[in-house]
């Protein structure tokens, strides 16, 4: 079945350093949507950004990701981490109605 893999459970960074959270996926659908959701403490996950188009960079709130179908990847990046970026990040894919989430990566940004 479909799956999403996030290899890092925890990423710790110093403020100002670049962020990269990994996401790879497996799906039977030829044209899946890929998503990044962010969940801050005591909140529910909310959409950060999404993409459908191969090799096109999508950006939102300083984060960006590019869907690469050749490598089934959708890594999340940011050039400079901020303290407020500390949160749990989920990568997800969907084909049709079913949404499949990765296991999540907790990002901790310290001063």
């Amino acid at each position: 079945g479909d799956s999403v893999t996030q290899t890092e459970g925890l990423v710790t960074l110093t403020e100002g350093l670049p962020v990269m959270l990994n996401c790879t996926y497996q799906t039977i659908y030829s044209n899946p949507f890929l998503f990044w959701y962010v969940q801050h403490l005591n909140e529910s996950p909310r959409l950060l950004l999404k993409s459908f188009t191969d090799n096109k960079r999508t950006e939102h709130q300083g984060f960006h990701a590019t869907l690469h179908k050749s490598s089934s990847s959708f890594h999340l990046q940011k050039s400079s981490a901020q303290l407020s970026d500390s949160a749990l990040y989920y990568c997800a894919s969907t084909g049709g109605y079913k949404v499949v989430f990765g296991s999540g990566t907790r990002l901790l940004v310290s001063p």
Partner: protein
Amino acid sequence: NAGVIQTPRHKVTGKGQEATLWCEPISGHSAVFWYRQTIVQGLEFLTYFRNQAPIDDSGMPKERFSAQMPNQSHSTLKIQSTQPQDSAVYLCASSPGGDTEVFFGKGTRLTVV
């Protein structure tokens, strides 16, 4: 638009008791999902409905968990004979359907003592 509404926000039950969690999806959304979230397991898929019909319940513990969607405006997740390991935040989400984002409710924190 009030978003996805979940009630109650917090529920404490004694071991062996029943717990019913409620979800009101966003009006017009055809897909409704239930997830369970714990620190250890992360976000676990339980079940989803499309146009009120159950489509996939592959994540549901079969013996004690059940979900229904009697009409387009609400869904329930029922846990019978609750156990301490059922303690978690249960999240309901809805989407317009197709390859679109899901919108999460604020969740119900279930504590089984």
